[in-house]
């Protein structure tokens, strides 16, 4: 057990209990309904997801959370039965927006009557055409492939939880979500589009096209979805679904 290497065993919920410098055992003395079975031999310890310090597990009432005493990270949060529905809804919306953002031109640029429209993929193509294929690859991955993978994996995993069916590869999808999370750069892309319009306005006529709206929508909904999606909770649900089937 990795826990044995760590010197101190203490945790408490800052939202419920007053800060007590005396340490761990104070949590046991508080007569609270939130603590389940406080005999010493029955307490379970869960590792903090951030620093791996053992934290005393207990049943949380709705809306409260368990925070790590050592590093302050959130260990566990009580969510309602339907807490994964927003994630499914937002990721569906974001996926639709993503498809439309890729199919419609983002902006048109016009210099003395000569017009050019730009899709997301056009930038990749022209960077590749100029010989900068590493950049083209990076832009392709970060602005098209990664967001699509991230959103569809999230959609699939939350659909499995929503339908209460252990869909095949749902766990793989969950791993993809975790892997792709730092690569969900659509909000950054949206900012870059705004800046580029400002720059191009100095040179010629720039006009927003419908794709820009979808890029913004995709950024907005993917942020909401990322906020609503809880990897740990989905993992637990999938485990219980898989156990239910056997």
């Amino acid at each position, binding site marked *: 057990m990795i826990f044995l290497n760590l010197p101190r065993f203490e945790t408490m919920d800052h939202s419920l209990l007053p800060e007590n410098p005396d340490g761990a055992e104070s949590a046991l003395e508080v007569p609270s309904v939130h603590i389940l079975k406080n005999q010493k031999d029955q307490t379970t310890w869960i590792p903090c997801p951030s620093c791996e310090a053992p934290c005393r597990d207990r049943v949380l009432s709705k809306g409260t959370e368990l925070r790590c005493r050592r590093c302050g990270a959130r260990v566990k949060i009580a969510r309602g039965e339907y807490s994964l529905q927003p994630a499914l809804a937002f990721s569906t919306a974001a996926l639709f927006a993503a498809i439309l953002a890729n199919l419609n031109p983002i902006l048109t640029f016009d*210099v003395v009557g000569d017009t050019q429209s730009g899709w997301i993929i056009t930038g990749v193509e022209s960077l590749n055409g100029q010989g900068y294929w590493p950049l083209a690859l990076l832009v392709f991955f970060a602005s098209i492939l990664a967001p699509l993978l991230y959103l569809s994996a999230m959609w699939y995993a939350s659909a499995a939880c929503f339908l209460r069916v252990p869909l095949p590869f749902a766990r793989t999808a969950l791993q993809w979500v975790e892997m792709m999370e730092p690569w969900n750069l659509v909000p950054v892309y949206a900012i870059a589009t705004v800046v580029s319009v400002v720059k191009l306005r100095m040179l010629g006529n720039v006009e927003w096209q419908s794709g820009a709206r979808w890029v913004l929508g995709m950024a907005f909904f993917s942020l909401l979805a990322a906020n609503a999606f809880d990897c740990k909770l989905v993992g637990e649900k999938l485990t219980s679904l898989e156990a239910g089937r056997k």
Partner: protein
Amino acid sequence: MSISDTIRVELARALVVTGIILYIPSNILPVMTMSIVGTVEPLTVLGGVEELYDSGLPLIAGVVFLASIVVPFLKLACLGWILFLHGKPVNMKERTTLLKIVQTIGSWSMVDIFLLSVLAAVGQLGALASVEARPGALFFAAVVLCSLFAAEIYKPRLIWRTKPISAA
């Protein structure tokens, strides 16, 4: 995929040092050239910011300045500090918070790469207006990738490892 903790620390350190070295050419070399009706204008990252500022858009210039010059540097500096103190039992809570901040804001320096991509997408009007990438952009992308990977490889839990653990 499992990487041992020692390798994680070493990889992160190597990436930060690489990033710091590449940061210099990424700011000196021009990132792109914009040519409008015959006049060719090479632009460095800072030059692009100045141009935005001069045309009366201090807010957007500020955003780009922060995202493309300050954030990459601060990120590398913060990661350098975090990694320098690795294994020492000081400032552990601060380092954890800082690492989380670096992981969240880190991706914002990609704004310049995307900007180049959007500009290159519509800047293909031949002699009238064209936008072309220049080697500085490659260095810039490399800096961004180095700091992104370094921040992801070094996990917050490693900050709290103050002594070597035999069986991890």
